[in-house]
């Protein structure tokens, strides 16, 4: 219907009257109706950065699940004869050939250390001859475990705390909020450090400290949302009909809070991972000989003048994990709450 100049020509003949009998058919919704979650997932899939992050994280999670049963070699086994070997995947691959520049000469470190042929350390070894790739695998698994526990605390403490505080209001709310205010006015790290001193340093005390402080933001968000949800008509109706508060919370409040909860857990995972790495980096986190991204980076940093590879891989891995989680969290927020997206 376009003429030679490309303009659209509209003539009376372009219009066709619709048969009156078809009204019902016209009113039909042709697209499949989507639930809230389906709709959010559809929007998430459109966000390229978030999708890539999601896949990347899935791969990382799979690798670390594997590391529970299998690593290329024992991550804590020391072999000083093989200390500080550079990364090697094969002969002639730049950066992974097992050669190092010693005083201006290229030297095959693997030959020097008399490593049997066919034994490669993909990311090299550290100063005690431990396989860095295996240690990195274990470190990532630990980070993800910490992230999972942070989620658990968010859900088990933060959500009920916020719900109770917001639902009851009045004096209960004031006291509960005051407690939160006091806990949150102590720098998070100070609490963590006090916990580490009280218990022996290690996974247990880090988790304990997280349990004390990690859920605060979640509790605050849930409380604020509960305050507004509480006065919604459907909640009022449920109350009037004599529904018990627990049932109202499960049937009405939590479903409506779900996007807030999902988004906040996604943001607390990287925060928790950062905290563990941070504590291990300054030497009060995971004790030796166990590997954590923080200790690996701290060990690498000590020798970075001569053996920079020992620092770069942990640094790169922790950065990738943090960026991926943050991008995914951003993506989820935009997907669940399209209003925030301009």
């Amino acid at each position: 219907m376009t003429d030679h100049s490309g303009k659209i020509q509209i003539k009376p003949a372009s219009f066709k009257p619709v048969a009156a009998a078809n009204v019902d058919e016209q009113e039909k919704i042709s697209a499949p109706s989507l639930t809230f979650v389906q709709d959010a997932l559809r929007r998430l899939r459109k966000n390229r950065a978030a999708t890539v992050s999601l896949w990347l994280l899935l791969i990382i999670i799979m690798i670390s699940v594997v590391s529970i049963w299998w690593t290329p070699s024992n991550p804590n086994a020391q072999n000083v004869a093989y200390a500080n070997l550079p990364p090697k995947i094969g002969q002639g691959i730049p950066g992974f050939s097992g050669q190092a520049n010693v005083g201006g000469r290229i030297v095959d470190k693997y030959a020097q250390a008399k490593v049997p042929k066919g034994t490669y350390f993909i990311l090299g070894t550290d100063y005690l001859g431990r396989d860095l790739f295996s240690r990195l695998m274990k470190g990532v698994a630990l980070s993800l475990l910490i992230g999972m526990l942070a989620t658990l605390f968010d859900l088990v403490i933060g959500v009920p705390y916020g719900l109770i505080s917001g639902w009851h209001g009045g004096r209960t709310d004031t006291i509960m909020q005051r407690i939160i205010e006091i806990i949150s006015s102590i720098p998070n790290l100070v609490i963590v450090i006090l916990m580490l001193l009280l218990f022996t340093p290690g996974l247990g005390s880090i988790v304990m400290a997280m349990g004390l402080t990690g859920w605060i933001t979640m509790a605050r968000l849930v409380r604020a949302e509960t305050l507004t949800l509480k006065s919604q008509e459907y909640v009022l109706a449920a109350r009037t009909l004599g529904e018990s508060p627990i049932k109202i919370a499960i049937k009405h409040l939590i479903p409506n809070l779900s996007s807030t909860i999902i988004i906040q857990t996604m943001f607390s995972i990287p925060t928790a991972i950062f905290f563990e790495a941070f504590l291990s980096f300054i030497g009060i986190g995971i004790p030796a000989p166990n590997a954590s991204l923080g200790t690996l980076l701290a060990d690498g940093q000590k020798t970075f003048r001569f053996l920079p590879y020992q620092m770069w891989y942990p640094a790169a891995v922790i950065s990738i994990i943090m960026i991926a989680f943050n991008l995914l969290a951003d993506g989820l927020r935009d997907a669940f709450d399209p209003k925030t997206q301009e």
Partner: protein
Amino acid sequence: MGKYILKRIGYMILTLFIIATATFFLMKLMPGSPYANQAKMTTEQIKIMDQQYGLNKPIVQQYWIYMIGLLHGDFGTSFQFNNQPVSYLIASRIGPSMQIGLQAIILGTGLGILLGAIAAIRKNTWVDTVATFFAIIGRSIPNFVFAVILQFFLAFKLGLFPIALWDGFSSSILPTIALAMAPLATTARFMRTEMVDVLNSDYIELARAKGNSPWQTVAKHALRNSLIPVVTIIGPMAVDLMVGSMVVENIFSIPGIGEQFVKSITTNDYPTIMGLTILYSTMLVVVILIVDILYGLIDPRIRLSGSEAQN
């Protein structure tokens, strides 16, 4: 407003009291001995040492003495660092920390505001994408990784700055940049959202309709109004800076309180840990109070609803 401030100060003192009490009793529960070679000491020697530090008195009395001392600015005596008073240790080390902290917050918020504003004005262009990308990098990559990267490339490879040394302004540049990344990212992100909101508002349209140029509108109307909410994130940012300073000071060997804190923890130096814990908490609580008051002063609309929300 006066009543509101008084009430907030009251809560602040209560909070600090609880923190000091909790820290004191936690320290008493702690395993490990404050003396370096307790195994080699005779009971007699331990007794004398206990007497010297007042550790032989009943706990309640020790608590009372400690609290009274706190009111006079006396944090006790360090067990480890040449028996110096903790207050002296803090006083001699707070300078470098303050310098780096202030430099970082000025650099971070300044650049962050700029980056966020530009991203909002050039929304959905490549400028915006680049700015958002930087903000995500800054928010995601831990400050100690930044510190290590800066140290490796700028100090070690290029030799532009000292690697780990505290000597004048040039040695404060790298730690400042490493610490400023997180505030920069947070501010930029916040600023962008605010600015986008403000730019869509009616008064901006009016300002444009009056014949202001786009840049005039931004400078005179949009920037000011978007800055108000940014004030609120200074509190959390200050916390991040305090935490960050511990690790950054360690990496660059800066004689600040963050480095001291880490050292005290690894040596079980209770009085110093307690003193620094209380110091950190006080700084945090005061910063949050100041920010809240400032917020009420800057934007009178918030004052009423803000104080109501407190109840």
